[in-house]
C-alpha cells in the first residue's frame, strides 16, 4: 500500500490547483477561491467547485435552485468575472522553459 500511496500522492499533486474569482472592475471587492482538478493540460480544462461563482450569477442563486438544471452556460455569470488558476509545476514543466528566468515572479503576497 505504501507504494500505492506514493503514486496516488504524485498523481494528485500533479492535477491539484487553486481557482480564484474576482471582479474586473472592483478588485477591491475581494476574491473568492476554491480548489480544483486539472482534467486536461492541453487544452487546459479544470473542474472546480461552483460556490465561488455565486456572487457573479446574473440571475442570482435562484439559477442554481431549479430542480431540472443540469448545467448553466458560462455566460450565466457577469462579464466582469475574472478567473485565475494556479498550480504546481509538473516535472515536465520544471525541466522546461516556461518559468526559466522568472524565479519569484509568482510568489503571492499573503
Amino acid at each position, binding site marked *: 500500500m505504501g507504494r500505492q500511496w506514493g503514486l496516488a500522492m504524485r498523481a494528485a499533486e500533479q492535477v491539484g490547483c487553486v481557482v480564484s474569482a474576482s471582479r474586473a472592475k472592483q478588485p477591491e471587492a475581494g476574491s473568492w477561491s476554491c480548489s480544483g482538478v486539472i482534467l486536461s493540460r492541453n487544452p487546459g480544462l479544470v473542474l472546480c467547485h461552483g460556490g465561488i461563482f455565486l456572487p457573479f450569477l446574473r440571475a442570482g442563486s435562484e439559477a442554481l435552485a431549479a430542480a431540472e438544471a*443540469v*448545467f448553466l452556460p458560462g455566460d450565466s455569470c457577469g462579464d466582469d468575472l475574472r478567473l485565475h488558476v494556479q498550480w504546481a509545476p509538473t516535472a515536465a514543466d520544471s525541466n522546461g522553459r516556461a518559468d526559466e528566468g522568472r524565479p519569484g515572479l509568482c510568489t503571492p503576497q499573503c
Partner: protein
Amino acid sequence: AGLEPSPPARLRGRPLQCPRPAELLLLLSCPAFRAHFERLFGDAEGEQWRFASVAPDDEGSEDDEEDQLRALGWFALLRVQPGPGAAAERGPAVAVAVASPGAVPKGAPLLACGSPFGAFCPDIFLNTLSRGVLSNAAGPLLLTDARCLPGSEGGGVFAARPAGTLVALVAAPLCWKAREWVGLTLLCAAAPLIRAARAALGRLRPSEAALAAFLPPELGTPRALPFRSPEPSWAAAAVLVECGAVWGSGVAVAPRLVLTCRHVAPREASRVLVRCDAPKTVAVWGRVLFATQETSPYDVAVVSLEEALDGIAMPVPTERFSEGEAVSVVAYGVFGQACGPSVTSGILSAVVQVDDTPVMLQTTCAVHGGSSGGPLFSPRSGRLLGIVASNTRDNTTGATYPHLNFSIPITLLQPALQRYGETGDLGGFRELDHAAEPVRVVWRLQRPLEPPRSKL
C-alpha cells in the same frame, strides 16, 4: 487575522506556476447528487445540518446560508488560457483517469488533495494531502473521513488503487449536525460530473463542443474493474438497532445474537428491531436478553433475534490489542437507516488496562451519535476488537470530539458470549455488573485512586 502565519521557518520550496487566466465554460450539477443530498440532508433545518461556508464571511445571513446550500452541489468547468509555451507543452493531454460510479468500495483508502483556504498562501497550502477511507455512499453522494478544510471545495479525492484515479470532488469539507462537528467530508463522484460536462459541451458552440474529447475517460465499469476489491466482509456484521424511539448500532456475533449498548437497548425483555444492509437489506425482530445495570461501567446489551441473519460472516474476536494499529469503526451514526453504515478509519490510540486486563479502547476514528454499539475492527486482520460505547464531550464548553472515543474490548465480552453460546447461561454477562472500582474509575474518566497516605 487568525490565519496570518508567523514567518515560516521553512517553506515547502516549490515554485508555482503563475496564476493563469481562465474562462468559465459551464456550471455543472449532478441531479442524482442533489436528490440524495435532499434525501439525507433535506430536513436540514430540522436536523440542524450546517456545512462549511464558501463565502468569506462565516457569519453570513440566513439568505447567504441558503445560497451556499444551493451552490453546494454545483461545480464548474473552466478553460485555462494557453500560456506562452503552450505549443511546447509535453506529456499526455488528459491529466487524470476517473473511477466509474460504484467502483470504489466502502472502506477503501482515499487521498484528498485540496488547498485549504483556497488562494490564501498557495505556496504553503496548495495541494495539501489528507488520507481517509470511503466512509459511505448514496449514489454519487460520497462521504470520506479524510479531513479537509474550507477552501478545499472542488479538490480532488483519489483512489489508492489504481493509484491516482479521480474518485470525487469535495463538495463540503466540514459539516455539523445539531452543532456537533461531524468529522466527515461530503463529496460528489467525479464520473457523473464528467458525463454531464461531456453532454453539456456538445450543446455549446462547435469550438467548445470539441473540448469534450479532452475530458478524462472512466476507468472500466464496476463489474469489470481490475482494481475493485470486494467490500470487507467484516463490515457486514454491523447492524442498526431500534428500541422504541431510540436507535443505535450493534454487531452480529452469532446468526441470532447481536451485541449493542445498554443505552441503545436498556430494558431487558423489550422488543427491538435489528436491520442490516449487507448482503441484502433485512429487518428482524428480537428482544433484549441482557443489559448491564446502570451502575455498571460497561454499557452493554445483548439482543436475541427471532430469525437468523443469513449470509453474514460472523466476526472473529481478537485476542490481543496493539496500540497504534489501524482500526475501523462501522456504524450507523449520523444517518441511521437512511444511508447504510459508515466506515471511519483511524488507529487504536490507547488500550487502558486494569491489572493487565484491557478494559477500555480509545481510537482516532470519527464516531458520531448513533454509532454506539457499532463494531471496532482491525481492517488488516478483519478481527473484531470491541464495540463503541461513546465519543467525548466537554461538559464545560459543550464541544463534542468525534475523534476521541471509547470502546469496550471484545476480550471482556468473549468469555460471556462463549458461555452463553455453549450453555445458554447469561451468568457471564451478569459479571459485567460487578466490575471492580478501578474499572469504574476509568470509565468515569477519573484519575486512578491513590492509596491512602499515612498521616504519621
